[in-house]
Structure formats: C-alpha cells, structure tokens
C-alpha cells in the first residue's frame, strides 16, 4: 500500500486522542492523567491563539536566531561528486542544536498555565541545556533529570546547566540512562502536579507531547521549503535526518509529507544492528508501550525494555516518536541506519571539508548520505538537517578518531 492510498494528507495526524494509526495514545497512570489533560487543554488553547505564535516568533527571531541558513555544502558536494547536498543549519541556533525550538514553545505554554517550575529529562544534555536556558530567560525554576551515567559522561553540559541555574537530579534507577531519567521525571511530576510543567525533549511521551513538540520543530521544515524554493526554484528530491526520539527529523519532514519528496530517517546502528548493541528501534525493535505511547521499542521476548547503545548520547534511546512508527509502517518515510564507526568518519569528513564540526547525531545522517550520494545525478538535491554542533562530543570522539587514524 502506498502512502497516497492511505489519506489525502499525512499532515493531519494525530487524531484528538493522540493516535497516529495504532501508535501514540495516552498510556500513563491515572495519577498523571489530570496533569496530562491540563497540558492538552493549554496546548490546544495556545495552538489556536495567533498571539501565542507571534510571541514565539519574536523569540525565534531575536533569541534563537531563526531562520537558520540553508547552506549548500559545496566542498562535500564536490568531494562526493554526485547529488547536490544542502545543510539546514540548525546547529547555529542559540545553545547549538534544534532542541531550543521546542523548549521555547513549551516554556511559553507553561507560562500561560501559570506554572513557575519546570522539569526536564536529558540524555546528552542538549535538551537540558536548552531548557535551563529558557528557564533563565523566563525566570522559571528548572530541575533536570539525567541518568547518573550521563552526568559523568557529559560534564560540560552539566556545568552549563548549573551555570544557567538549573538543579540536576542524577538518576540511579534502572540503567541510569535517558529512559530512566524520563521515568524519574514522570514520577517526580506526579508529586509536584500543581506547580510544575514537564518539558519533554522529543516527539515521544503521552499525547499531546508528540504533536506539540512536532509543531514547535516544524519551523525547520517550513523554513527549508521557502529557502530551497528561493535557492533552486523547486522542492528537494531527498530529505535526510538522524533519529533518536526523532524531533529534529519530524521537524524537517512533516511540512514535506504530502510532497513528491523522498524522505529518509537514519537511526543509530551502534556496533551494528546484528550485534544487538544499537539504538535502531524501527530496524531492530517491535511495537510496544513505554513512556505514555505505543511505538517501536527495543525489548526482549518478555516485553522488558532493553538498553540502547549508540556512541551518540542523543540517539541512545530504546524508543522512537510514535509518528515515526506510523510513517514507517505506512511506508511514507524510509528508515535506515548508520553505525558508530560510519558516524565517526562522517564527523571527521565534515569538519575537514566544510569547517563545520557536526554533532554525532547528524553525523549519522551524513554517514548514510555518503552511501547513496555518489550514484545520484548531479541535479538531484539532498537536504540534511544539521541539527546540532559537535563541540559537546569532542571528548568522546577525539580518542576514537586518533585510533582510526583520522586525526
């Protein structure tokens, strides 16, 4: 079944209960439901209020630094000698990644609800830093839940968050990583319902989060559409973005879902999907329920959630946003993966040829592009979302690049 046979548009999901086909939904404890319903109502009201969007637009322009450029990566294009490669430069946003697009939106919703305190979960720390930033700006108290393992691995971001005034809660339950940080943030939220708003960092969680986060990230794709029309006079042939939870990817993809554009999401294959040590929920997982929604998950035969592995802490999550699971099953988006090693090579290549140090996350997208671009015609246009900058990754990456002889 082709996606065209499914519906006239793929842009009106989810339904009012948050379902993207069989995916999404609101699978949370009753203790959490009153909070979720409150967020649903506030989001619906904000979404339909033009003054909400004009306020957000002000911060997008003057604080985040939008629109981000669409840049023709000419040296990589020359190097690959195939299709033409553009980068959507979301790494140039304030705080160095796409995460701030979502955080500013949710912080404004929280303010409208009269909430004075913010909770967030973070893996690599990018979402935590973005949240701490918005909280400093809006004078909101900020508490960030982060796996104890990640607190150790991502010290620079922990320091940034502290400097910005956030309180860090190291999480030692479960496997002490991102999924456990999210469990703990949800637990904490239940006990602080009246004062706290939970800013989820990706297009996962119970409805309305997957929809709300997507709508805040869609600015990426909307700008891209205008920019490519101005630069080339036509839509691109292919879009590529990396996927952990999938917020940068859905932000780029969603405005193009009804267009004649090929769309590819790149998951993290870690040491290789066949080794079992990966974070490729679609390629190597199956549907299940976690963190409030039905989606593809890494799990064992008993339905216990297993740990993800990726060199990129931002992709190191055993699930994926429910909309991606839906776009995977209906075939609209093609999902592939790239290994740690392939991402490292792309990381080095991009730094050397473009003077852009990519985050390890978009390095996965570039790694996949490297495998297809050479055989594509010269007039084929690929746009990749450069969703974050790589400074945060140097400590982890440099020793490995040295070992690979890339330094």
């Amino acid at each position, binding site marked *: 079944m082709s996606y065209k046979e499914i519906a006239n548009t793929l842009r009106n999901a989810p339904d009012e209960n948050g379902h993207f086909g069989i995916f999404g*939904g609101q699978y949370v404890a*009753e*203790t959490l439901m009153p909070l979720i319903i409150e967020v649903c109502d506030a989001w619906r009201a904000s979404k339909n209020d033009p003054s909400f969007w004009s306020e957000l637009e002000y911060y997008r322009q003057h604080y985040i630094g939008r629109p981000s450029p669409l840049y023709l990566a000419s040296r990589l294009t020359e190097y690959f000698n195939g299709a033409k490669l553009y980068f959507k430069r979301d790494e140039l946003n304030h705080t160095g990644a796409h995460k701030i697009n979502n955080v500013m939106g949710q912080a404004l919703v929280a303010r409208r609800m009269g909430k004075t305190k913010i909770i967030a979960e973070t893996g690599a720390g990018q979402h935590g830093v973005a949240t701490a930033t918005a909280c400093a700006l809006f004078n909101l108290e900020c508490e960030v839940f982060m796996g104890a393992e990640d607190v150790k691995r991502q010290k620079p971001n922990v320091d940034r968050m502290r400097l910005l005034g956030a309180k860090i809660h190291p999480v030692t*339950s479960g496997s002490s990583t991102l999924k456990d940080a999210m469990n703990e943030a949800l*637990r904490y939220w239940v*006990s602080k319902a009246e004062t706290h708003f939970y800013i989820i960092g990706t297009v996962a969680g119970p409805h309305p989060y997957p929809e709300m986060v997507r709508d805040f990230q869609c600015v990426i794709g909307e700008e891209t559409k205008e920019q490519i029309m101005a630069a080339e006079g036509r839509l691109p042939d292919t879009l590529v973005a990396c996927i952990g939870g999938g917020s940068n990817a859905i932000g780029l993809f969603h405005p193009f879902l009804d267009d004649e554009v090929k769309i590819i999401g790149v998951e993290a294959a870690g040491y290789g999907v066949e080794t079992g040590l990966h974070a490729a929920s679609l390629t190597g997982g199956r549907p*299940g329920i976690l963190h409030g929604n039905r989606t593809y998950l890494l799990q064992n035969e*008993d*339905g216990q959630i297993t740990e993800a592995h990726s060199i990129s802490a931002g992709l190191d999550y055993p699930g994926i946003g429910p909309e991606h699971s839906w776009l995977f099953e209906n075939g609209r988006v093609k999902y592939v993966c790239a290994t740690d090693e392939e991402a490292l090579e792309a990381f080095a290549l991009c730094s050397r040829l473009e003077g852009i140090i990519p985050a390890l996350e978009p390095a996965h997208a570039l790694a996949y592009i490297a495998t297809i671009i050479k055989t594509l015609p010269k007039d084929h246009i690929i746009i990749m979302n450069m969703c974050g900058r790589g400074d945060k990754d140097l400590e982890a990456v440099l020793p490995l690049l040295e070992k690979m002889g890339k330094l």
Partner: protein
Amino acid sequence: MIKYTSDRLNILFKKLRSKKASALGIFITAGDPDFDTSLKIMEGLPEEGADMIEFGMPFSDPMADGPAIQASSKRALEAGGSLKKTLDMVRLFRVKNNFTPIILMGYYNPIYNFGVQKFLTEVIEAGADGLIVVDLPPEEDEELCIPAKECNLPFVRLTAPTTSNERLTTVLQNATGFIYYVSITGITGTKDVPIELVTHAVKNLKEQSKLPIAVGFGIKTREHVEQVTRIADAAIVGSEVVNAIANSLDANGKAKPETIQTTLSLVRDLAAGVRGK
C-alpha cells in the same frame, strides 16, 4: 471465549462486610528475590492475615512506583522473572489455596507483548481474580479493560487525590472488582498516608460507587492499617513488604533462610491492625 467465574473478590468483600470487617491486601512482586522464595512467601501470606494478594508482574520501567518496588521488580527480573513465570506462580499457589483473591498488578507492555487474548485466557485459567494495569487509563480502555470485561474478569481502577469528580465519572465507568484509592500525590512508598484526606476521599468515593474501596500507597505501619481499615474496605501494603524482603537478603542480594519468616512476620504484625480481625 473463556469466562472468569471464580468471583473470589466478591465473596471476600461480601463476607467481610457482613462481619463489619475490612481486608488487608499485601503486595509482593512475582519472583522477588527468586521464584522459590517468592512462591513460599506468597503461600504463607493468607495464614498471616493477608486477605488478598496484589501480585506484581515485574517490569523494567515501573513508572508509577517508588524506589522500593522498582528495586523489587529489578530483583525479580534479574532472577529470571517474567510474565510467564508470574502466571506459573499463580497456578502453583492455587494448588493449595482456592480462596485468596489474587490481583495481578503491572504495566501494559509485557501484556501487550504476550498478546491480550492469550493473556486473559491464561490469567483466568491460572486462577487470578483481577487486573491492575497502571498505565492503562480510561482513555485506553479498548486495549485491555473492555476485553477483560467481556470475560467478566475484574479490572481495578486507580483514583488519586488529584482526580476531580468530573474525572471520577470517566474513571469509574468501566471499573469492576474494587476501587483502588491512591492516597498520596506521588509514587508508591514515598510519603505517609494522610488519614484526614483519605477519610474525606473514601466518603466521596462511596457516594459515587458501590464497589469496595481499597486504599494504598503510603501505608507502612500497623497503625496506618488500623486507621485506614476503619474507613475503607481494604488497606494495601506494598513497599514496606518488599523492603522487608530487601533487608533480609545477603550481600549478594540472595535470599537467606530467614527471608521468608521475616517477611511473613511483618505481615502478621500489619494484619493485627485490621478492623474486625
């Protein structure tokens, strides 16, 4: 389709109501700290005064549970616990005990993964008497609540201090078995039960529903049990019990010979607080 007919919950509450007595529910996680020890604890519970058993199906990501039950779930999984083994334990328990109600409590993913119809069939065949699936609110009733209802298997609802009366109507719509009132805003085992608020909430629930009311989360001592069973049909104790298991283990987290007895003597002590006993 197989139907649930045992009716152990109704029989229990009817009997207790006629005696103006209340019930003690004890939570343990299936397979904590290992299959054999867990089964022996389970088998010993009724004799020590547990009127019903809330039997935890271990899960890797217990979102609504506090540190004690999280740790208990982790121990069970590390010792090889699974949904299949949980059902095996229910079967073995029923060989010797055919009257104590068993309510399976857990999260939806292992059930969904097992297959809903297969799960319901095996639950009924094994001899369990109801389900509490924490992450299935009324919004997702089509998943398991309605299929369970079609088999006449009780599906117990949670309500919380934050549940408004408007919301309560939705929550109680498909509720069966009993109502589980979560006494605190938060996760299991963290704070003490606030008796005044609970009294008020239980009174309100009784106006809205004819189902028995059980109170849980934050009941830690015999005094708590005394206070709660004076106002509600049942008090459920979980974290304290699994803490007793945790505290009895050796340095490697393995059961010691006294693990079973120390856990059961805590239950005996709690049971002494139950109204009408």
